């Protein structure tokens, strides 16, 4: 019928399409009949970042009911902030990387190595503390940059890259420091700048350390950058679908390198805060930082597949673990049981999250 090869191409070749001018233009509507739990689920589904906040509030409430004013005190509440500070900062770095569908197993190693560099440059070489801190921050950024280059240019899986550099940075840390601790008292006398984030101020019974404040500032800043700048959108796009991001005009390699470098810098900052927290410079610190940061991030609802989640969620995740650990300890739970219950908490929190995100029960 339709050998329209010699057609004049300005008229439609397939005239059955002419009827399309009458096609319906309304959007389909279907009746709704939903249970309460389905409605709640739908609400949370549309605002997934609310989920960890919810869990956090629930946890505080439950422990508050069990423990009463001891737990519900400004003291205990701000103590949690202090205890979560390091995890919160490293989890921010980890979130950035995980949003790009990566993972950074070297956060703890970068943190402790940077703190050692700050301390050793001050004490071994007699460089002013401020400059040593800057050098330490630079070293952290450099370590992150190395991860970034291996991921973006050599195109190795982030898990493997950071599995390797974790061991490399940690060993370098021990070799460089000769396993020597710099004591808190010496630092206090000669280089108090190093301990800056350990200092605190009080508002009523609440004790805020500068470190806890710094953590909140970092989280708020990153939250702003991620959702209100082009760079932030690019971070999500890279994690969502790297090839699509590349094709739609994102400089994927640059973005990845920047993310890993920034992650390294933030970890180095965590290293500085660590000196404030423990007073001294100790190369054996931060051994659990990786696992704690990743735990905070996943409990906070950030997807390990990239592109989904928020830095506020990660902070909430860290706080949930903090509330749990302190609460359980205050109840008098044995450390081993605490450990076990936190394992269960991880699975439980993510199950809830999954249930909500699915939209189907």
């Amino acid at each position, binding site marked *: 019928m339709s050998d329209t090869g010699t057609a004049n191409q300005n008229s439609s070749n397939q005239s059955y399409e002419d009827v399309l001018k009458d096609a319906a233009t309304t959007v389909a509507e279907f009746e709704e009949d939903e249970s309460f739990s389905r409605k709640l689920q739908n609400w949370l589904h549309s605002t997934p970042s609310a989920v960890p906040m919810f869990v956090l509030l629930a946890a505080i409430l439950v422990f508050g009911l069990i423990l009463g004013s001891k737990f519900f005190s400004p003291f*205990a509440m701000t*103590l949690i902030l202090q205890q979560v500070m390091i995890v919160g900062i490293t989890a921010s770095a980890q979130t950035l990387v995980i949003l790009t569908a990566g993972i950074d197993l070297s956060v703890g190693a970068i943190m402790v190595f940077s703190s050692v560099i700050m301390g050793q440059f001050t004490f071994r070489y007699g460089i002013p503390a401020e400059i040593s801190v800057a050098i330490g921050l630079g070293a952290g950024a450099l370590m992150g940059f190395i991860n970034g280059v291996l991921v973006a240019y050599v195109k190795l899986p982030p898990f493997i890259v950071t599995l390797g550099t974790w061991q490399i940075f940690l060993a370098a840390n021990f070799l460089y420091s000769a*396993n020597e601790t710099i004591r*808190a*008292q010496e630092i206090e006398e000669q280089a108090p700048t190093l301990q800056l984030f350990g200092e605190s101020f009080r508002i009523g019974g609440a004790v805020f350390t500068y470190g806890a404040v710094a953590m909140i500032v970092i989280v708020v800043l990153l939250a702003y950058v991620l959702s209100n700048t082009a760079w932030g959108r690019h971070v999500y796009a890279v994690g969502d679908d790297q090839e699509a991001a590349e094709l739609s005009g994102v400089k994927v390699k640059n973005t990845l390198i920047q993310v890993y470098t920034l992650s390294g810098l933030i970890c180095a900052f965590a290293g500085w805060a660590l000196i404030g*927290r*423990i*007073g001294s410079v100790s190369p054996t610190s931060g*051994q659990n930082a990786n696992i704690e940061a990743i735990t905070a991030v996943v409990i906070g609802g950030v997807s390990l597949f990239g592109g989904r989640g928020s830095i506020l969620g990660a902070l909430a995740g860290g706080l949930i673990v903090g509330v749990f650990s302190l609460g359980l300890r205050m109840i008098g739970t044995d450390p081993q049981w605490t450990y076990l219950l936190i394992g269960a908490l991880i699975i439980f929190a993510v199950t809830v999250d999954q249930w909500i995100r699915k939209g189907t029960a």
Partner: protein
Amino acid sequence: ADFGACLITKTDTNPFFVKMKEGATAKAEELGITLKSYAGKIDGDHEAQVTAIETCIADGAKGILITPADTSSIVSSVQKARDAGLLVIALDTPLEPIDAADATFATDNFIAGELIGKWAAASLGDEAANAKIAMLDLAVSQPTVGVLRDQGFMQGFGIDLKDPKKWGDEDDPRIVGHDVTAGNEEGGRKAMENLLAKDPFINVVYTINEPAAAGAYEALKALGREKEVLIVSVDGGCPGVANVADGVIGATSQQYPLLMASKGIEAIKAWADTGAKPEVTPGKDFFDTGVKLITDQPVDGVESIDSKAGAELCWG
């Protein structure tokens, strides 16, 4: 006599073992022995020690100095080494049974704990009956050093131990609780905070080692309570002794890793030269390298030296 020997420590990140290695290396050089050192990745990593023992056998070493990461788990491997003709000396921590090694140069960790327990009780005097004690231990896996020191402290303080092979089963109300520190400052601070949140009136703190004590001190300082609390610890490393002088730590039990190491190397040399095995301390089944209590607030009935004397003997 040019031959090889091995030093196998629990880790190579704890200054205690770093110094032990330095001491052993220096002595070995002096005596013309080639020393190779091995270590576990973390405290308690006894599988790495097994691997290290095998390497020493394959390598044709004459003797092994080892700080067992697990008192019984490496006994079979030690036996293999001895069967292969190597002299095996346990340092720091005895094997179980103690005669599984050819000789042992060690601190008695239980006694180390007992000394600081006695000191703390005596310092408090009558108040000891109302003490509120925080126990800052090593790890949830309850490695033996930690258990021995913890239980030794309780014994010295006058607390019913129940099962002396584990901590946490005591019911003395003076104990506020146990928490774990991983033996570093970070863990020490967090564990101290946790226990303070449970009971803010803690006035005695036992710590597994001096880094953990330093961390605990930071937590107390944040509350302004550092002057009202007695912190006791074990090790006697130079930073620890300095902390005694600065009043951070009330008393610490000092050990002598360099002595253990050099004694060990000498023993291997002697054995290689003459076939003689080292002697034990009279009345004990091992050579006790000794432990001294270091404090600037001596009490009656507990022998001690001050921090100045301790600083001359310290090891890191």
